[in-house]
């Protein structure tokens, strides 16, 4: 167990640090595990971070290799599997995998039809992608927390190798999706209502007065309110998923620290982990579903044209 060789705090921190590849600035002092200066960089260097501090010091110019790897890998797993089924899909009696895939797609299609009444062929595939992809990323949470990181450490030969396997516990991943959806919302709003329509939506809501000289004073208030409501959407979308998964992961890690504390506690931890995993099956599915439904709702709002006129 990793807990034997590290302190509990170290163990937890290790589990919460991503494998980060990024740029360290010139003159950066790299520390070794004892805290001594081990190397001073002569020039800007792209390298793997050796500690959480280094990862933090890399700033924005860094990438979480493990998050991206698992995110892309799981996405491809889902898409290639579905594409394989799609290629052979026939209208006869569906069997086996096709049946399962059709069940998921039928469910998504129904959800999209219930929430999105406009013409846009991209929304349903997007909902499917979001649901399945987030579900799979969340499902990595169910793999016992030490298995894959230990395996990665073994393969890399570095016992302190950072390797987080649940991409959705990385806010970059969840906020990345949230802001992409935000971007699509802005794009569809402008595409549907024109740039002026978008501006009007931001400035003439929720307060409106027929006299223009009153409106002039209402515009800044409206803009402030609308800006907050717009910005809060992607952030809440991303942070909800991140928070749920991070908290779940944290509990798995805490339970895992008990494995090193003797047979009785170890057995108890095993039972706890099993129970939490069972509960988590619900959470991962629910979070994927919530993310998808909210995306559909936001997309529907972006396509809503009549809303403007209903107030007059």
């Amino acid at each position: 167990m990793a807990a034997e060789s590290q302190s509990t705090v170290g163990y937890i921190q290790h589990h919460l640090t991503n494998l980060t590849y990024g740029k360290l600035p010139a003159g950066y002092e790299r520390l070794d595990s004892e805290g001594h200066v081990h190397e001073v960089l002569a020039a800007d260097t792209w390298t793997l971070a050796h500690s959480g501090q280094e990862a933090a010091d890399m700033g924005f110019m860094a990438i979480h290799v493990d998050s991206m790897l698992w995110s892309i890998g799981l996405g491809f797993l889902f898409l290639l599997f579905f594409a394989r089924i799609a290629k052979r899909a026939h209208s006869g009696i569906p069997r086996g995998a096709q049946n399962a895939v059709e069940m998921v797609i039928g469910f998504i299609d129904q959800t999209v039809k219930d929430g999105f009444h406009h013409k846009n062929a991209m929304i349903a595939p997007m909902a499917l992608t979001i649901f399945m992809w987030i579900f799979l990323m969340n499902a990595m949470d169910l793999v016992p927390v030490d298995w894959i990181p230990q395996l990665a450490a073994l393969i890399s030969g570095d016992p302190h190798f950072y390797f987080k396997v649940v991409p959705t516990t990385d806010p970059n991943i969840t906020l990345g999706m949230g802001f992409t959806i935000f971007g699509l919302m802005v794009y569809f709003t402008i595409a549907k209502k024109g740039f002026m329509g978008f501006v009007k939506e931001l400035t003439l809501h929720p307060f409106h007065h027929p006299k223009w000289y009153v409106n002039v004073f209402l515009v800044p208030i409206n803009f402030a309110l609308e800006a907050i409501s717009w910005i809060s959407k992607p952030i809440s979308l991303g942070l909800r998923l991140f928070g749920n998964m991070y908290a779940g992961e944290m509990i798995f890690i805490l339970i895992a620290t008990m494995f090193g504390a003797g047979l009785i506690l170890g057995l108890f931890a095993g039972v706890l982990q099993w129970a939490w995993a069972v509960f988590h099956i619900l959470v991962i599915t629910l979070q994927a579903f919530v993310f998808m439904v909210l995306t559909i709702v936001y997309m529907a709002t972006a396509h809503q044209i009549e809303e403007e006129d209903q107030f007059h």
Partner: protein
Amino acid sequence: MNINLTLIGQSITFLFFVWFCHAFVWGYIRKAMEEREKQIADGLDAADRAGRDLELAQEKAAKQLREAKAEAASIIDAANKRANQIIDEAKESARTEGDRLKAAAQAEVEQEMNRAKEALRSQVAKLALAGAEKVLEASIDESVHKDMVDKLAAGL
């Protein structure tokens, strides 16, 4: 938990996956599902139609049966009437024929009788004449008279 390029990486990956899903997954599977839905709907429709057709055919058959029965009954009725009529007619014609025959026979009998009477009358006259001749010619022999009178009688 640093915000960094991963955000943009995930964003690009997300867009790519949505495109991929749109291009290679969603359409094909939905097409298969819609085709199947259509097939099922068509099948149910056809079954419905067949049921309705069957009902209609049964109704038609029942109606035809009813009509045939009514027709048969009316035919039997007419036949009975006609038979009675024929019998009545036959009776009538038989009665008139009988009457006619009877009348003809009576007329013939009468005629015959008249003829016989006529003949008798003529013969009686002749006999009376002959008898008177004999009476006048012969003696008043009783036996002879008797004979003569017998002969006269026999000649009647």
